[in-house]
């Protein structure tokens, strides 16, 4: 379990990564339900997230003003490595399964099974010019 200060920092990071948008009618990744999902889903990323948060302004990220937060995030991103990628992944893997977000994308929430989807057959006459090509494989000596 993350410490309370780490949870505050991570929530702040989530909101900076994917903020709420009135234009698209979606919550931010710091929304209570989405953030609860993020916290509950850290799983194998727990240690990496904790290390990334520690690298952000020495672990007091949420206490910084907006300008300093942005500078700290940019510094982490410029360092590269797995820390920024891990932080983004733990945020978006929960954000883009939130029902409100999924509906805003014009998609139906829920797992693919058992309903499935339909895939159009397409026009197989497109293959006609390929069908008439001479053989392409090379004969090999025995």
């Amino acid at each position, binding site marked *: 379990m993350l410490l309370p200060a780490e949870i505050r920092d991570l929530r702040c990071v989530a909101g900076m990564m994917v903020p709420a948008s009135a234009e698209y009618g979606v919550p931010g990744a710091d929304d209570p339900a989405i953030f609860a999902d993020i916290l509950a889903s850290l799983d194998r990323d727990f240690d990496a997230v904790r290390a990334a948060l520690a690298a952000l302004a020495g672990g007091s990220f949420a206490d910084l003003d907006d300008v300093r937060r942005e500078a700290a995030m940019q510094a982490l991103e410029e360092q590269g490595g797995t820390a920024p990628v891990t932080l983004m992944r733990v945020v978006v893997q929960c954000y883009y*399964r939130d029902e409100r977000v999924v509906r805003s994308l014009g998609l139906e929430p829920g797992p693919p099974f058992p309903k499935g989807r339909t*895939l159009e057959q397409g026009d197989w006459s497109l293959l006609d010019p390929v069908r008439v090509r001479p053989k392409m494989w090379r004969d090999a000596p025995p």
Partner: protein
Amino acid sequence: MNEMVDVLIIGSGASGAAAAWSLADTKMRILCLEQGDWMKQSDFPSNGRDWEARRYTDFDLSPNRRKGPWDYPVNDDNSPMKVANFNAVGGGTIMYTAHFPRMHPSDFRVRSLDGVADDWPIDYTTLEPFFAENDRMMGVSGLAGDPAYPPRQPPMPPLPLGKTGTRYAKAMNKLGWHWWPSESTIATTEYDGRAPCINLGHCTPGCAQGAKASTDITYWPHAIRAGVELRPRCRVREITTNEHGMASGAIYYDADGIEHFQPAEVVIMACNGIGTPRLLLNSASSRFPNGLANSSGLVGKNLMLHPWPQVFGYVDERVDGDRAPMLSLWSKEFYETDPARDFVRGYTLQFTRGTGPVNEAITSAAAGRLPRGQDHHRIYRELLYKRLQIGIACEDLPEEHNRVTLDPVLKDSNGIPAAKIDYQISENCRRMMEHGIARAEEILTAAGATNLYASRTVLNSPGHLLGTARMGNDPERSVVNARGRCHDVKNLFIVDGSIWVTSGGVNPTSTIQALALYIADSMKQRLATLFD
């Protein structure tokens, strides 16, 4: 003490299952030890709302991240490509895309035709009936008439073109380049108890519908009905030998960590291109101090991993994305050697459909395409379901410095030394990769895509583990003979991808299984003289 069996097979994946089924009609007592457990269709990610995220947890391609109870670690720090595998009944066929191309005739004669590496001691014609038998057992969907291959007849119709495939097809026709619907083991009709595909997408980490062929639902039910015993959750530590230098059985740990000895008249290894050399090296003894069956010194060497760049682009309308199998078309336009190019051999272009909402966000953010902040939403909506993606399956030629050894420190949960891989991408392959990336960019542009991005080494992909106990006629230059029998140990056979001499530029499962059927068939034909 376990009772003696006639045949002990280690590993229940692509090759072990095929060999077990083929040998079952001999009525010999056959036992398969599998370190993993049975999977259930309800276990697979597409049953739940976290279906995309589980690709990064318990269905991650890498055993090092997955860390399931049956996984063993692999030290792949000294390799730009990481190991992908799966440990369960069905092995890697649980976790594969179900892409099912065969090797081409020329792939077996690379020395004769192109002056590189070595020829195989067998050829396409020898394997042809076993390819066909395997297509029938696994259930292959596809279309006859591909000019890139000798004639064949897949038993089910191909996957639909869909919007994405139609885009690719028109682009390829514009360029005048070869394309054909990919052959796959995704059922497009009801087949041998399997339901047809309903386009769940995300076929790789197991199919909740059961449309994707994995050997737990294809070969194994038939083999078990024919009398083969499959014992899951049994991890083999070493193969033992007797005073005559013959394999006498295997020592394994059960699910409770209890050690057992399983005696056997014949041992068949089906543990993949990393698991097999690891086990052979872990079976060193006073008689075989450098590892079992390793008088050539080639056990673990010539590891081939198939470098597989991916090139993405985005079109101006939503296409199929993850709402269908990932597989779509293939192109063999650049498969055969062309002396005008600056590399030998060639590659398959594999056209795929894109990805789902979570993976689009993860991969695009990692690639620097998707920003954080207010612009995130606008740009994400420009990307979602608009991706076209081409993989370049490059032939990887054997090099002895690419190898599997035993890690001096790392061990699995039973204390068995883990494998370590050392691997570099060759210059020939790098030139091939750049050629393929440039062609993929041409195709994507012809398909109307922009915002192109090339990823040269995709982590944990593709997970093809080949070449580390190679086949050949010369005992000093190979580990097994042309019938899969170890030169050094006459009742020890290998049927998995480790016996490959070269890799071709195709997904290997079809050829791995055809080889396993061929080896099992040759054993059946020679039962009376098997050890001569």
